[in-house]
C-alpha cells in the first residue's frame, strides 16, 4: 500500500479520528455518572462550608455519601425567584447548580442575554439562606456561595472556587480560610450601588484597627485582579437578589440581633 497516496492519507486520517472519537465518547459516557457525583458533592460541600456547617477540608474527608446525607438532613427549602424577588417554583431538594448553570444565569443577570432570570435560593433548617455568585477572575471563571443569617442581611459566611486563578495568590479566594472569614458579620447593603465591595488597600477600620461592620472587606494582597473580579461578581449577583431579600418579612429585630450576638459570642 502506498502510504503516500492522497486516498490513503485521507482514509487513514478519517479512520483515526473516528476511532479516537468513539473511544472518547465511550469513556466519557461510562464515567459521566461518577464525575457528576463528584461535582455535586463538591458543590454541596461548598454551600455547606459557606453556611458554616464545617470546613471544606472536613467535607473533603467525609466522602461523597456522607456529604450528601448531611445535606439532606439539613436542607429545608430550595426554590427559584425572579428578578422582582417573587418565588417562581420549588425545585428538588437534591438539585444543585453546577458552575456551567451559574454561567448561563450570569449571562442573563449581566443583561448579555435575554430571558427571565430564575435565581436559586437555598434555605437550611436553621434558617440560614445561601445564594450563589459567579463572575470572571483573572484567568477564568470564579464562583461561590454567600450565606445569610435569618435577618436576610448579615453575612454568616462565604466560600469561593475558581477555574484557574494564580496558585498562591488569586487561588486564596478558595484556599485561604482567613479571607473567607472576613465576610462573617459584615452585611450586604442591598440599597447601595455596590451591594458589597472587596477593597484594594483595605476597607475602612476602627480607630483601634479592628474591622468596621459594613459592606466592605480587604482585597487579597498581590491578587488585585482576582479580588476585583470577585467584588464585581458578589456585587452584581447580590444586586440581582436584592428584591428578594428586601421583600422578606422583617423578623423580630431582637431575634435577629440575638442570632448575630450568639455567633459572635461563640467565636470568642
Amino acid at each position, binding site marked *: 500500500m502506498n502510504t*503516500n497516496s492522497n486516498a490513503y492519507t485521507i482514509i*487513514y486520517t478519517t479512520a483515526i479520528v473516528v476511532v*479516537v472519537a468513539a473511544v472518547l465518547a465511550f469513556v466519557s459516557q461510562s*464515567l459521566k455518572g461518577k464525575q457528576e457525583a463528584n461535582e455535586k458533592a*463538591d458543590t454541596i460541600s461548598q454551600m455547606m462550608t459557606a453556611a458554616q456547617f464545617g470546613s471544606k477540608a472536613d467535607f473533603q474527608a467525609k466522602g461523597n455519601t456522607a456529604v450528601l446525607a448531611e445535606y439532606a438532613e439539613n436542607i429545608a427549602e430550595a426554590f427559584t425567584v425572579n428578578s422582582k424577588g417573587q418565588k417562581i417554583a420549588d425545585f428538588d431538594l437534591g438539585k444543585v447548580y453546577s458552575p456551567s448553570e451559574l454561567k448561563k444565569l450570569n449571562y442573563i443577570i449581566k443583561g448579555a442575554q435575554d430571558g427571565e432570570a430564575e435565581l436559586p435560593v437555598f434555605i437550611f433548617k436553621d434558617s440560614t439562606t445561601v445564594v450563589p455568585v459567579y463572575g470572571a477572575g483573572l484567568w477564568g471563571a470564579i464562583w461561590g456561595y454567600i450565606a445569610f443569617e435569618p435577618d436576610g442581611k448579615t453575612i454568616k459566611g462565604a466560600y469561593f472556587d475558581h477555574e484557574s486563578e494564580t*496558585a498562591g495568590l488569586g487561588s486564596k479566594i478558595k484556599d485561604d480560610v482567613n479571607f473567607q472569614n472576613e465576610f462573617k458579620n459584615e452585611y450586604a447593603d442591598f440599597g447601595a450601588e455596590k451591594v458589597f465591595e472587596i477593597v484594594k488597600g483595605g476597607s475602612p477600620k476602627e480607630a483601634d484597627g479592628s474591622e468596621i461592620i459594613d459592606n466592605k472587606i480587604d482585597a487579597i494582597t498581590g491578587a488585585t485582579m482576582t479580588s476585583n473580579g470577585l467584588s464585581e461578581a458578589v456585587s452584581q449577583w447580590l444586586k440581582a437578589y436584592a428584591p428578594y431579600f428586601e421583600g422578606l418579612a422583617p423578623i423580630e429585630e431582637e431575634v435577629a440581633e440575638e442570632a448575630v450576638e450568639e455567633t459572635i459570642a461563640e467565636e470568642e
Partner: protein
Amino acid sequence: MNANLKETILNPIFKGNPITVLVLGICSSLAVTVTLKGALVMALSVIAVTGISSLILSTLRNTIPSRARIIVQLVVVAMMVILVDQILKSFEATYAIDKQLSVYIGLIITNCIVMGRIEAFALGNKPIPSMLDGIANGVGYGMILLIVAFFRELLGSGTLFGFDVLNRIGYVPNNLVILPPFALILLGCIVWVQRAIQKDLQEK
C-alpha cells in the same frame, strides 16, 4: 536487559533530561510546581501520556501517511490527555486535584516533551522501547518538577504535601517564591548543579 534498553531508560533521567538538557516542557513546570501534590499529579499524567502515546504511535509508525504525520500524532496525544483528565475527574480522591490542574493537564497536548519524543524516538523505534523511552522522559521531567516544587512549597507556603513543616517554627511564608519567576531561577540553579557535576554538558 541489553545495554541499549538500559541506555534508553537511564538517559532521560540525568544526562538527557528533557527539561534541563533538551529544554522541553518548561511552561508547565513553572505553573504546577507551587505544591508537591500538584507536581506529582502532573508528573504522573505526563508519564502516562508520553508512555502510552509513544507505544501507540510506534506501533502505527509504518502505516502513518507522511503528509498527515503531525495531525495523527496530535490526535493520539489529545486522546490520551482527554482520557487522563476524564479519569482524574471520576475518582473522589483525585477530583479536587484535577480541578486545580485542569488547565495544565489540557496543555500537555502542546507539551514539547510528548511531541518531541514521538518525533525523535517513537517514530523510528519498536513499540516497547518507545514506550520505555516515553516513560523514562516522563520520569526525568517529573524528577525536576518535584525538586522545584519541594523548594517552592517549603519556602513559599511553609508546608510539604500540605503538612505544616516550617510553619511550626514560626517561619513566615515567602510570597516571592510562589510566583513563577522564582521557578525559573530555581531551574537555573538546578542546571548549574547538574553541569557542575557533569562537565561535558557545559557550553563553551
